[in-house]
């Protein structure tokens, strides 16, 4: 990794946010909790433009959701006077939860996206201070037919393409939608993805896609962890093919891609929707370097057995040279790998359920 910085790991849980830092990604210093007793389903670390802005999507069961940011690594937090993400009076809706905070690419430094519950996508052009509701998706004619998964009806994944105006969104339930015009119009892109829980198992939309990640080299290649099924596409989602054949199970929530190398992705399989534990209690991160044709399990340093699930945003990579891989379990353990997912060390254990983690190399 870079010798000029340390790694910041933001850990959002069901009862607060913890910040961990390390110079070698093996020994970690972990903060006291921020926002104790609030759920933190989303975090982001925006390192574009030579500065570090940390985001936290908070959710108080008493006082509702809000988005805050920090420009001093969590020493202080800011929420704009009118709030960052709010529906208007004519929308007839209230923000329930912020599931995703996604900084755009380097050449769009002020742009930050958010995916929320109810199913909605939001875009900021002022570095995440304020967000505007994406009307193309909000007014989509499919909206009445989108449904709620167990966690609620949410746009949980927003993936702007670094190459052009393409944006992919994944929602549960609804599936993958793609915009080719920066978010003005959206079309379902689910061909090949199963919705086995519906009478018609191959609908245009209605799939329960749990997570999608974009390939580091080819923006038309994406990988999806579905509610049963793991898939890849080479044409921006026009068609998807199964890559689950050599995995121990095809259920799970996590999908990660390498920050620079094409064809590399990670999943953390769970047995099935009816048995949401690592297969046989064998917690492992499975990695492919060939786009899903073959997979290798990384479990060195992980406890055995472990019967805890890993949720969709409770895993991430960093951008270091030899990428780090991180994840946290519903049992409150957080693990870090400094060797691209081959071996892991525990960062901290016994936290509340881990909902979100993000890592980045930061100055200092």
């Amino acid at each position, binding site marked *: 990794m870079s010798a000029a910085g340390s790694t910041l790991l933001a850990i959002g849980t069901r009862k607060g946010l913890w910040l961990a830092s390390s110079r070698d990604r093996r020994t970690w210093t972990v903060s006291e909790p921020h926002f104790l*007793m609030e759920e933190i389903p989303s975090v982001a670390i925006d390192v574009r433009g030579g500065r570090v802005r940390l985001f936290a999507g908070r959710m*108080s*069961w*008493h*006082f*509702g959701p*809000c988005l805050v940011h920090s420009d001093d690594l969590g020493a202080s937090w800011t*929420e704009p*006077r*009118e*709030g960052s993400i*709010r*529906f*208007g*009076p004519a*929308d*007839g*809706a*209230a*923000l329930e939860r912020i599931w995703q905070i996604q900084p755009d690419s380097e050449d769009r430094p002020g742009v930050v996206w958010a995916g929320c519950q109810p199913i909605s996508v939001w875009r900021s052009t002022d570095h995440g201070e304020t967000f505007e509701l994406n009307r193309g998706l909000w007014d989509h004619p499919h909206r009445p037919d989108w449904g709620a998964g167990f966690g609620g009806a949410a746009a949980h994944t927003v993936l702007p393409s670094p190459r052009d105006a393409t944006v992919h969104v994944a929602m549960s339930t609804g599936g993958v939608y793609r915009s080719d015009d920066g978010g003005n119009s959206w079309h379902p892109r689910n061909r090949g993805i199963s919705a086995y829980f519906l009478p018609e198992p191959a609908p245009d939309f209605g799939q329960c896609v749990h997570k999608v990640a974009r390939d580091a080299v080819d923006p038309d290649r994406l990988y999806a962890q579905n509610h049963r099924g793991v898939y890849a596409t080479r044409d921006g989602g026009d068609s998807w093919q199964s890559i689950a054949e050599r995995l121990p199970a095809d259920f799970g929530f996590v999908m990660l891609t390498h920050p620079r190398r094409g064809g590399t992705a990670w999943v953390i399989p769970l047995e099935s929707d009816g048995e949401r534990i690592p297969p046989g209690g064998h917690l492992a991160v499975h990695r492919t370097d060939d786009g899903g044709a073959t997979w290798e399990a990384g479990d060195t340093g992980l406890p055995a057995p472990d019967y805890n699930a890993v949720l969709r945003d409770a895993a991430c990579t960093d951008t270091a040279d030899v990428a780090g891989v991180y994840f946290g379990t519903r049992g409150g353990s957080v693990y870090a790998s400094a060797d691209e997912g081959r071996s892991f060390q525990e960062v901290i254990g016994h936290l509340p359920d881990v909902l979100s983690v993000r890592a980045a190399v930061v100055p200092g």
Partner: protein
Amino acid sequence: MTSVTVLIPTLLRPCTAGRKEVTLHPDEAHDVAAVLDRLGVLHPLLEGRIRDETGALRRFVNIYVDGEEVRRLDLLGTPVRAGATIMIMQSVAGG
């Protein structure tokens, strides 16, 4: 003129720069909705913690007018007299 006093719970004081109470002119606080509308002007983040964007009182927030819980009265239409004390409380929810 006898002002209306709104007591702010500890957890929400970051939204009022630490103030424990907010006083309102009775003409702008004739019922609970009007109180919240005025709070929305003075301290918009505070109002957003109490009501959502549709105007609905958040499920686990309780408001008492002179000791009476508004869900047992006329909810946001509950009248507020001059000199009243409005207490905002989080309910005993959570796990």
